[in-house]
């Protein structure tokens, strides 16, 4: 008798969630990631690149500064570059508004968003600084100013969901609901948002992604459990697509920023950072992500190619990806 794979019956599916005025669709999964032998997976995971509203300056990772040379400091130019590099979506991070740093206000945040929207024709995520009051100030203004554009705004937490949620609802945007690596808290926040009147297909779950080697496993398992709740138990309070802000987690680690000559055992710095980002991205793909927000364009290219072959089948060919130099060790 020929081998038969044991299959699972799924009773639920992830909401199809249109992003941007362009209505790029996320979600729709009716099976665990890549398990197309037992359920339909209509949309591949989308890949976003993260850009800043200001020049990141000295603290920024050298490999990223190199990749975006000439674009740093102007969000419009940077956004264009991200799209040229193949991003489906641009994620504008409102770094200038950090109260611990420049503490820019709503007017600057609106202006930066305007530049990005003028420059590119892909859906745009506008991401605050995870500061309750500051994000209320900037994201509320952005929701109002760009009414009907279906921006994706976040992070929204249980501390500021009322204010930002109400604005997003009033002006037709999608929200990113961030909860701290916990299935029940994710569900609770979704319920609060839906009680406000936000439609189930206007919410993304942000499980608060941990970095590779820095707590990724917590997020990984929470995502697997979210998927199980959504697909096996058909819990309609958890059927939102998952977004992972992973690029930033990778590039802020010590190891991504150590120079090749300082630690030859860690190999070439650029390749190392790119492959750390790829490795976490692939892990999160299998944990059930629908949208990865990445930083390095080379990581995005590799992950895109992987997703295509993992979905469509066929051979994985070298399309001119980064050549990892072998670093000699004295």
């Amino acid at each position, binding site marked *: 008798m020929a*081998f038969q*794979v*044991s299959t699972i019956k799924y009773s639920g599916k992830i909401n199809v969630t249109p992003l941007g005025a362009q209505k790029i669709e996320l979600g729709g999964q009716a099976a665990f990631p*890549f*398990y197309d032998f037992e359920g339909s997976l209509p949309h591949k995971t989308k890949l976003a690149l993260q850009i800043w509203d200001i020049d990141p300056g000295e603290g920024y990772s050298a490999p990223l500064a190199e990749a975006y040379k000439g674009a740093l400091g102007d969000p419009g130019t940077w956004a264009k570059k991200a799209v040229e590099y193949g991003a489906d979506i641009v994620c504008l991070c409102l770094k200038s508004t950090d109260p611990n740093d420049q503490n820019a206000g709503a007017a600057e945040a609106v202006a930066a968003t305007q530049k990005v929207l003028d420059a590119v024709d892909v859906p745009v995520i506008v991401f605050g600084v995870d500061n309750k009051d500051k994000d209320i100030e900037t994201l509320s203004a952005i929701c109002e100013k760009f009414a009907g554009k279906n921006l994706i705004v976040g992070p929204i937490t249980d501390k500021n969901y009322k204010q930002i949620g109400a604005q997003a609802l009033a002006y037709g945007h999608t929200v990113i609901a961030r909860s701290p690596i916990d299935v029940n808290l994710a569900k609770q926040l979704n319920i609060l948002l839906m009680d406000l009147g936000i439609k189930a297909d206007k919410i993304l779950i942000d499980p608060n992604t*941990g970095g*590779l*080697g*820095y*707590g*990724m*496993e917590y997020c*990984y*398992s929470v995502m*697997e*459990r979210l998927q*199980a709740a959504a697909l096996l138990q058909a819990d309609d309070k958890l059927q939102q697509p998952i977004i992972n802000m992973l690029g930033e987690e990778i590039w802020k*680690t*010590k*190891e991504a920023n150590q120079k090749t000559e300082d*630690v*030859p*055992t*860690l*190999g*070439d*710095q650029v*390749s*190392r950072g*790119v*492959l*750390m980002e*790829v*490795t*976490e991205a*692939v*892990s999160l*793909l*299998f*944990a059930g992500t629908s949208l990865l927000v990445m930083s390095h364009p080379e990581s995005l290219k*590799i*992950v895109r*190619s*992987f997703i295509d*072959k993992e*979905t469509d*089948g*066929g*051979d*994985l060919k*070298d399309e001119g*990806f*980064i*050549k*990892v*130099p*072998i*670093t*000699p*060790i004295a």
Partner: protein
Amino acid sequence: MALTGIQIFKLLPGTNCKKCGSPTCLAFAMNLASGKAELEKCPDVSDESREKLSAASAPPIRPVTVGYGDTAFKVGGETVQYRHEKTFFNPTAIGGLIEDTLSPGDIAAKVKRWQALQYNRVGLNLRPELAIVKGGANLAAAAKAVVDNSDLSVILYSEDAGALKAATEALAGKNPLIGPATVANYKDVAAVAVAAKVPVWLKAKDLDEVAVLTKGLNEAGVKDLVIDTGARTPKKVVQDSVALRRAALVAQNRDYGYGTITFPNEITDSLALQVAVAASLVAKYAGIVVLSDLDGAVVFPLLLQRLNIFTDPQRPMTQTEGIYPINDPDENSPVLVTTNFSLTYFIVSGEVEASRVPSWLLIKDSEGLSVLTAWAAGKFSGDDVGQFILKRSGIVDKIKHKSVIIPGYAAAISGDMEEELPGWKVAIGPREAAHLTKFLKEFKVE
């Protein structure tokens, strides 16, 4: 197939003699069924029953030990599909390919370089553990060059049973995994393996053939097996891996109850893409992944991923209690104290290091809880932390000042700490480690 308590009971003597420590045979049977007892405890069970029971109680995926010394590892032995259901036990082994056409000198240089790829993290040594030696005519010499110049364990890769025999003999005591056993050569490979008592990997053309080979090899006397399903595309190799895990755990089909070896290096030439494929296989159940070469940029990301995926979700990783000097501190350097949750330690020590401010980081045992949970659970109380600083940590001998910085999330303990530490200044640090640089740069000890 796992037996129920009642099925097991029918195979026991039924005398209720209590020698096993259980009050009745039935109670003992129930304990056996739930994994709380071992069959050895009953001295009177018949040989026939013993055989039936041990066959039924064997793990659904057979654990197989490969290699020797520090780099020995297990393949198989897994019991779940998702790590949150219990844990994944045996981390995917990572290896690089050595062709036997390389000169012994080149092999020596390569494996010495691979051997240096070791990283210390949370008290664990992360490293790739394997060389896969492939070829025919020079297999034995190449394998010898690997073990003479490194402590890497070895997988032999040749369809020529004669070459495998010579190389296995050259690796006496090193417990190499040998193969591939195929439908064409499996009897000869089995003979080599039985004589040398080493495990075998088999290469099938599809999942049907896997069962043909595992049965054949079992009959030929080889029980310790590792499966290569023959898949060489990223999609097929993952789907086969999932199919095998489910066949073993869900369908409980013994013919598929083995760990796997996978070859990202035969799926793509690009080392960067091999990492992507290997990452998918670390997540999805591979026992071994083979890359075309090893380098820090390639193995370090995979080692971190493997550490994360194979960490026991029920047991948080901890950092040893004690003093951690960062950036060469002296007697006037600030002192920070936090909990022993490994992630807390990592993030805080990383930020302190990045600040370049010489500092003493004190890690206090808080049963592996993060700051907020430790504080809430009373494992990071003012008395306790105060006592630790004054009496247990030994920091007072290293500094001239009396200042300590506590995490922002534990601000509430500062009053109790000051009572415990008369004359000290307890400063409240930021809640998020990301703000430590700014804080430390402005902080003055008193």
